[in-house]
Every structure is written in structure tokens, then in C-alpha cells.
């Protein structure tokens, strides 16, 4: 197994093991291809939901929407996450990847599954949306594709764990794993749980599509499906928060304000993120109130607490690092003097703010048992999750890619000016897109709905003019966001194809262990308390005020509705 080599990147000092590096590249590239496909499909989705354009016919629209959801949420994100897992283990711990052959097998399984699923969808007859609620059935290849993909992803998680073991055994580092790796471990643990739930429900459904199983109960399906569907979103949260910590470290040399706080927050994720599948069942029959309340709130909002902590400690760490460099004037000089022209940083920061303000606040609101009734299955829901998985996860992955182009792919980035603007275009148009979707959802507009004019219906409902306006704005901002996504793909793929090749750095047969660092002074003064990040604290208070106001406005609205008991 010692046939491998280790390369030390001259630009970042990171050490890449040869087999891990290839696997990271192939998984990341495949992810970008999925994003490209999903992005092209987004054109169809958004131009159909824009009422003045109403482009595709109903059949095609539902097919395209099914594929858009799956290619984006599952294939783009998970392929990229596999690359991130390998990076956080093999690269950050400077060790070889466990069982690279098996890792290739995992990749092939995922690829075959992804292609199989897409082919099934585009043949028509499987336009069941990514949730594929029974008894509406897709072709058996649709489910089999997802199952193969899930098995591949599960294997990748175990390779990640195996790599951690190798690092420990070969003593490539001392003490605890880095915080970013710790976050990746969180993501992988959650992944193992959720992918297993996915398999539990998809396998009988697949058998049902083959006629082997008679029927799968509709409510049981929804319950188990969401144990997979919701919790798997927490993989993304853990992954992109790890990336935020990594970017803070890379761009500023920032060290976590307190390892204890940040790691505890990740632990809270592991403990409570398995819950929250109830988010999607709050408007369902047959589920008990007590279960809904405890589950939807992650047992008293402990996972929300964890996210609020990360939301403070990451900018806080940046602030501390910047202040140490002398940007000490006022509350916000540290932020003004941040490298806003560097897409690695700007992408990460726009993701963080958008994820918190738009995705976080709306998510907690709609995850409240009673409040859920005023948005369930409206277009508010995609408004919320485009703020989480697009602004949060996708934009963070984009930011990380800009770092990886010279470091992992060893190419000089083409079109740096375009890249510099890309996070702003993509991020801000997505902010707006999410806001207007939520606006339309607040007015009741349905999600997954081909025609808000209800053509052909005898008792059509006339949406208020504002709803049409909002959906028009959804269309426009969606197109702008797609343009932003296209620039990302152009810069990434273009750099890989035509970017100047960069020096790969010294190659060695053996890994160089991570040198231990001397303990810092603060650590000796356990319990010391300063107030080191006042600017971040001020931002956090703004966030809290927005959160509280929005939360209670919705209760106020709810209180005016029909009595329900």
C-alpha cells in the first residue's frame, strides 16, 4: 500500500496524497456536471413559473422539476460532499486514503445510480418529484438509481472513517483532529444515519414498483422518507459550516474563538439533528402533537442553538484575527477591510449571512408546529430551502472551489474578474429570489404547480395581483441567479481545461506529519473572559431582532385565521 506519493502544494502548504487527490478531483468534477444539468433544468422551471412567460407544457414542467430537484439536491451536493470528506480526512490529516479501490467503486456506484435515475426521469413516466410519495409510482429504475447512489455514498462515508483511523494509527497528527475535520465527522455520522433511513423506505418502494410488494402505506412512507430527506439536509449544514471555518482559517489564518464552543455546537448537531423530520409532517394527519412538537424543535431547538452559535463564532473568529492585524477602529473596520475581492471569502460570507437571515429565520418559522399551516406546500418552502441549500451550501461549495482550483486542480484561474463578481451576482440574486418566493408563498401560491391561473378549471381561484408580481420577480431573479451559476461553471470548467498549469510542488514517498503547535497563552488562563468580537456581537443582535420580529408577526397573522382544533 506504500506505492502512493504525497505532494506538498507550494501555494497552500497542504499535502495531497495521490489517490485521494484523484478521487477528490473526479467527485468534484462530477458534482459540477450535475450542477450544470440541474442549472439548465432550472431555466425550464423558472421560466415556467414566471407567469408572463409560462414556457414549458405541464408534462415537461413536472419532469424537469423532478430532475432539477434530484440533480441539484442529491447529485450535485453529495458528489461534492464526498470530495469534501476526502479532503477533510486525507488532506487535512496528511495521511493516505483508506481503500482507494473501494472509493472508486463507490464513485462508480454513485455515477451509475445518478445516470440511471436521470434516464428514468427523462424517459417520462417518473415525474414524481424528488420526494416520490407513494402511491404515485415512478419506474423501477428511478428507485434503483437512487438506491445505488445511496449505497455508493454510504461506502464513501465509511472510507472517510477508515481514513481517520489510518491517520490515528500512522500518527500523522497529535492531539485532536482539526475543527474542520471534526465538522466533517459530524456530517458523515449524520449521513450514515440518514442514508440508512433512505434505504429502509426506498427498497420496499422499489420492490413495489416491481410488483413484489403489494403496497407501502402513504403515511409511513412520508414519515420514513423525511427521516432521510430532512436529516440529510443537516449533512449539508454540517458540511458547509465546516467549510466556513476552513475559509476563515485559509483567508485570515483565523483560529476558532473557542474550540470548546465550536465543537460542542457540532456535537449538538449529532445529538439532535436526527430529529426534525416532523418539519415535513406538521400538516399531516395521524401524527401526535407531542411527537411533532418535540421532533420539529429538535428537542427544544438545540440544533437551532448550535447553528446560532456557529453563526457567531465564525465571523467572531474572523473579527479576532482581523483585529490582531490592526483593523481595530470602531465596530466594523475588521469587516470593511476584509478581502471582498477574493471570491473564496466573499462567497463564504454571503453564504453565511444569507443562510442565517433568510434560510435560518424562515426555517424556524415554518418548522413551528402551528405556523407551518400557513406555508405548508406553498412556494414559501422552496423559497426557504433555496436560501439554505443554494445560498448556504451551494455558494459555500463555489467559494471552496475557487480555493481548490490552484491548490487541488493545479490550474491558474481563468477570468479572475468574472470570478470576483460571481458570488455577488449569484448570492444577491438568490437572496432576492428567495425573498420573493417567500413573499408569494405568504400569499398562498402553491409550489410544484404548473399554472397559477388554473387553466381549464371551472372554479379557478384568482390570486391577488401581488402574487403575480412576486412570481414575475421570481422569474427575473431566477434568471439572474442562473447566469451567476453559469459563470461559476465557466470559470471552473474553463480553468480545468484551459487554465495555465501550476507547479505541483515537492513530491515525496512518505507523508510529513503535522508538526505539533505550541499551546497558546490563552489556554493556560482557562475561564478568561474578554469581549473580543464586539462587531460580530452587534451583527448577532441585529439578527436576533429580525428573528424575533418576524417570528411574532407570523403568530399574529395565524391568530386571525379560522379557528382550528
Amino acid at each position, binding site marked *: 500500500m506504500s506505492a502512493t506519493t504525497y505532494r506538498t502544494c507550494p501555494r497552500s502548504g497542504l499535502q495531497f496524497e495521490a489517490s485521494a487527490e484523484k478521487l477528490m478531483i473526479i467527485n468534484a468534477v462530477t458534482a459540477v456536471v450535475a450542477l450544470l444539468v440541474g442549472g439548465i433544468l432550472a431555466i425550464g422551471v423558472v421560466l415556467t413559473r414566471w407567469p408572463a412567460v409560462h414556457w414549458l407544457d*405541464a408534462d415537461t414542467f413536472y419532469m424537469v422539476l423532478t430532475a432539477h430537484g434530484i440533480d441539484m439536491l442529491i447529485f450535485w451536493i453529495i458528489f461534492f460532499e464526498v470530495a469534501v470528506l476526502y479532503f477533510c480526512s486525507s488532506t487535512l490529516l496528511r495521511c493516505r486514503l483508506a481503500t482507494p479501490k473501494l472509493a472508486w467503486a463507490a464513485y462508480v456506484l454513485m455515477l451509475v445510480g445518478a445516470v440511471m435515475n436521470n434516464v428514468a426521469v427523462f424517459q417520462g413516466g417518473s415525474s414524481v418529484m424528488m420526494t416520490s*410519495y407513494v402511491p*404515485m409510482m415512478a419506474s423501477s429504475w428511478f428507485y434503483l438509481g437512487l438506491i445505488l447512489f445511496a449505497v455508493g455514498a454510504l461506502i464513501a462515508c465509511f472510507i472517510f472513517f477508515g481514513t481517520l483511523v489510518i491517520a490515528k494509527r500512522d500518527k500523522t497528527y*497529535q*492531539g485532536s483532529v482539526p*475543527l474542520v475535520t471534526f465538522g466533517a465527522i459530524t456530517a458523515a455520522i449524520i449521513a450514515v444515519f440518514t442514508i440508512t433511513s433512505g434505504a429502509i423506505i426506498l427498497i420496499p418502494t422499489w420492490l413495489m414498483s416491481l410488483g413484489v410488494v403489494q403496497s407501502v402505506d*402513504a*403515511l409511513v412512507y412520508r414519515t420514513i422518507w423525511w427521516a432521510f430527506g430532512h436529516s440529510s439536509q443537516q449533512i449539508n449544514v454540517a458540511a458547509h459550516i465546516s467549510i466556513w471555518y*476552513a475559509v476563515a482559517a485559509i483567508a485570515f*489564518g*483565523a*483560529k476558532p474563538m*473557542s474550540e*470548546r*464552543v465550536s*465543537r460542542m455546537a457540532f456535537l449538538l448537531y449529532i445529538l439532535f439533528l436526527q430529529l426534525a423530520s416532523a418539519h415535513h409532517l406538521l*400538516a399531516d*394527519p*395521524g*401524527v401526535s402533537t407531542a411527537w411533532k412538537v418535540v421532533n420539529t*424543535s429538535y428537542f427544544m431547538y438545540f440544533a437551532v*442553538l448550535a447553528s*446560532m*452559535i456557529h453563526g*457567531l463564532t465564525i465571523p467572531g473568529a474572523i473579527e479576532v484575527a482581523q483585529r490582531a492585524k490592526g483593523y481595530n477602529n470602531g465596530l466594523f473596520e475588521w469587516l470593511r477591510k476584509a478581502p471582498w475581492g477574493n471570491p473564496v471569502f466573499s462567497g463564504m460570507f454571503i453564504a453565511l449571512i444569507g443562510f442565517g437571515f433568510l434560510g435560518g429565520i424562515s426555517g424556524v418559522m415554518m418548522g*413551528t*408546529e*402551528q405556523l407551518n399551516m400557513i406555508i405548508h*406546500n*406553498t412556494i414559501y418552502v422552496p423559497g426557504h430551502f433555496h436560501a439554505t441549500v443554494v445560498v448556504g451550501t451551494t455558494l459555500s461549495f463555489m467559494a471552496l472551489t475557487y480555493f481548490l482550483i490552484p491548490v487541488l486542480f493545479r490550474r491558474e484561474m481563468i477570468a479572475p474578474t468574472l470570478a470576483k463578481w460571481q458570488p455577488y451576482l449569484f448570492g444577491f440574486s438568490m437572496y432576492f429570489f428567495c425573498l420573493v418566493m417567500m413573499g408569494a408563498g405568504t*400569499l*398562498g401560491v*402553491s409550489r*410544484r404547480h404548473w399554472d*397559477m391561473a388554473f*387553466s*381549464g378549471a371551472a*372554479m379557478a*381561484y384568482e390570486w391577488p395581483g401581488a402574487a403575480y408580481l412576486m412570481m414575475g420577480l421570481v422569474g427575473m431573479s431566477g434568471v439572474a441567479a442562473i447566469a451567476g451559476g453559469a459563470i461559476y461553471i465557466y470559470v471552473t470548467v474553463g480553468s480545468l481545461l484551459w487554465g495555465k498549469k501550476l507547479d505541483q510542488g515537492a513530491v515525496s514517498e512518505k507523508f510529513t506529519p*503535522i508538526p*505539533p*503547535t505550541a499551546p*497558546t497563552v490563552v*489556554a493556560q488562563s*482557562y*475561564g478568561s*473572559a*474578554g*469581549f473580543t*468580537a*464586539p462587531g460580530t*456581537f452587534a451583527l448577532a443582535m441585529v439578527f436576533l431582532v429580525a*428573528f*424575533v420580529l418576524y417570528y411574532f408577526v407570523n*403568530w399574529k397573522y395565524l391568530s386571525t*385565521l*379560522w*379557528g*382550528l*382544533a
Partner: protein
Amino acid sequence: MSAIHPPSERVWWKHPLDRVEGTWILISFIWCLVMFGMMVGWHIWGKQNLSTETYKTTPEKFSAKTQAMVDKYTVRTETADKIPVVAPPAGSDVYLIARLWSFWPILELEKGKTYRLHLTSMDYNHGFSLQPANINVQVVPGYEHVLKITPNQAGTYSVVCNEFCGINHHAMVSRIYVK
């Protein structure tokens, strides 16, 4: 050293925490408790809580009950399909069928009166989206969900299906009248 390096102190759980962090954790924690309290409290003091009364049912059983109500309380029919408009007495059990791609029948209710609304689907999942009030409930086949509803404003409401249910999903829309 930084977040991508192993922490320099071996026992990370003994790291000091800054006052910024401590304060924020405390504030966040209190806010989390408030939100949790709201959900629980609304069950006690609030007037909009989704009922969990649910029975297993079959299309035959549910259609029979709905048909009985229609036979008894139909006041007129509407649209080319002659969908019955049913005005059941206040306090009674009212039934609404969701199926591909319509709701049946049309209900006519009285403002300020309470009804037990039974919902189910005959086939796929559907949505009960009451507009413009914007109350949304999932309708799941095989399950009869009983909601106690008290309309608080007169007017013509629409019921939009907002769970994707196939090619004519967009035409699945009906009404509820409140007098």
C-alpha cells in the same frame, strides 16, 4: 492552530470561552426556550391548532359517508359537472373528498359555527390549501383526518390542491362558501 490544524491544546473541551460567546449562547438559549414555549403555549391558549384526530379509512367507506351527507343536505349544484353544494347543520360532521383532479362536494358553512371537517384522498396525496386565508393541510390516502374548523369570516373561499398529484394538478381547485 487554526481551524484546519489540530488544536494546539490537546484537551479542547477546556478551552476558555470569550464573553461574546458566553453571552450569545445564553441569549440564544433563552430564545430557544421562548420558541418552544410558544408552541406548547399555543396549544393551551391559541385557537389555531391542527387536530390530530385520524382514522384509517378506505375510499368505499369514506365515499359512503360523504354520499350520505350529500343526499341529506344538498342545496343546489354548480358548474357543468353539477357538483353538489352541501349546507350541513352547524356542529355536524362534514366530508370532503380529494381525488384526481377535483374536490367533492362544495361545502357551504356558517360563519362562527364549528364543524368537524373530515378529509381524505381517494388516490394520491393531495393538498387542502384554503385561500385567501392560506391554511394548508396535507391530505393523505388511507387516512381520514378530522379537523374542527370555525370559519371566522364570510365569503367565498377557494380550496387549491397544493400537493403535486399528476398532470392535471393545476386544475384541482374548488370552493367553500361561508355565510
